[in-house]
């Protein structure tokens, strides 16, 4: 048989879905508002999947596909780590691992005026917020939060940045705190910035701590929480 004999959308929730799978039949749900997140599209009367991943649902009406990729799809409100590629008159061009370069307006800084435009060199690492991300347009960034304060956004000096997948970034940012960070944080002092686009920045007093933290995070990506704790403990033992 070609299809699973099921008629309820809930049967696909938290299941692996593939491009082409039909997850919702809109003709059965009249007068309901549904919010579609990433990975889903409307194809006439049905909602079908665009990307492979796990289908998620959050009440009251939001559906999306969670997948872990090396590239990032910009969406408004995300905090990402970008690298300055070029500086124009009005914007900085910043690479955020998306389909297009993003623009960071020169005035999007706390207390920013034409007289005190920051000078970022090519290659500067920035912690920024995605303000707008529409299809077909370059995303727009800002170094201020929604209320206009600087709030930790801006260039990240020193430290070490490494790239991994968007899934790892979400795990590191999950609450309660991810086991790796918790176990590392009990013994070591370090600073970390996680971008939802798969970039992570670590800084500490000594390079060996930075290397240890970075390697631990990268190596424990695919382990379960219990295994992560064990692995982290063993890596820290070796350091002494």
């Amino acid at each position, binding site marked *: 048989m070609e299809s699973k004999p099921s008629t*309820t959308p809930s049967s696909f929730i938290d299941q692996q879905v593939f491009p082409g799978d039909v997850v919702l039949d809109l003709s059965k749900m009249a007068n309901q508002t549904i919010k579609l997140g990433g990975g889903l599209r409307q194809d006439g009367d049905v909602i079908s999947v665009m990307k492979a991943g796990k289908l998620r649902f959050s009440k009251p009406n939001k559906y999306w596909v969670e997948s872990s990729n090396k590239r990032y799809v910009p969406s408004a409100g995300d905090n990402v780590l970008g690298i300055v590629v070029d500086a124009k008159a009005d914007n900085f061009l910043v690479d955020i691992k998306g389909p*297009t*370069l993003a623009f960071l307006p020169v005035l999007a800084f706390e207390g920013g005026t034409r007289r005190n435009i920051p000078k970022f060199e090519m290659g500067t690492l920035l912690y920024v917020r995605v303000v707008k991300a529409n299809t077909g347009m370059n995303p727009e960034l800002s170094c201020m939060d929604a209320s206009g304060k600087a709030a930790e956004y801006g260039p990240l000096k020193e430290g070490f940045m490494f790239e991994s997948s968007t899934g790892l970034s979400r795990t590191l940012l999950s609450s309660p705190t991810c086991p790796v960070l918790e176990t590392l944080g009990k013994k070591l002092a370090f600073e970390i910035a996680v971008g939802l686009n798969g970039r992570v920045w670590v800084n500490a007093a000594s390079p060996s701590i930075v290397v240890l933290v970075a390697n631990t995070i990268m190596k424990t990506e695919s382990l379960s929480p219990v295994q992560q704790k064990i692995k982290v403990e063993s890596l820290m033992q070796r350091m002494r």
Partner: protein
Amino acid sequence: MDLEREGGRGANQLRPIDCSRNVLSRAHGSASCSHGETRVLAAVYGPKAGTKKNENPEKACIEVIWKPKSGQIGKPEKEFEMILKRTLQNICLLNVHPNTTTSIIVQVVHDDGSLLPCAIHAACAALIDAGIPLKYLAVSISCCLTESGKILLDPNKLEEQKMKAFVCLAFPSSVHSTLMERFDKTIWHKLIHSNNKGGMVEEIGKAVEVSGFINGRIPHDFPEGVYIRNVKNGNSMREKVSNLYRPVLKANGVLMFWFAGW
């Protein structure tokens, strides 16, 4: 059909298929697929900003680079590139990221017949690994007509060289769907691509009537005859090959999956 095939394969039997993804650390998406001895590696980079000169900037552009196992790049490679590009353009959603280019590099690791289906499967798996938005997945099969008039599926290199005619077909893969009753079956008989060499026009007899429901760009009816005579209905073959993708893509890392015949 008591034809002697290498390894005792039946005329309808496929070689074991094995597929693994995320095999290259630097590519945005990668997959390696093998049909028996034929092995193809595909890497996807993208979407990246900008399209090529003659392409429509309102849509995403797909670029395929075919790398043979050895030798210089010539006309046969360009032909494969063009075939793969058209097949993948059919399955990709091109308006999600307009004005971007996605590059797919296909490297032939070993060619033991049935190269194009293997490449289509590898490219498809690599696109999924990279997270490129797709309409559906593609499955592909090749079959050949031998001197003695027998039809064989998934020929290896020796069989391909001795054959009279050859055809390669690609279809949308079967999907899981919540709508069972209203399922519009005609979609899944769509042919994405057919590529054939040679054809015995005289042999078309009874096959013609049955091929009515298929729509797609088929030059003449010969491929239809091959397809229908050996397979109960197109669905069973497509379903089996589609089952290939699901277990592979469930794993986070590399997973080997074996599938043999039916």
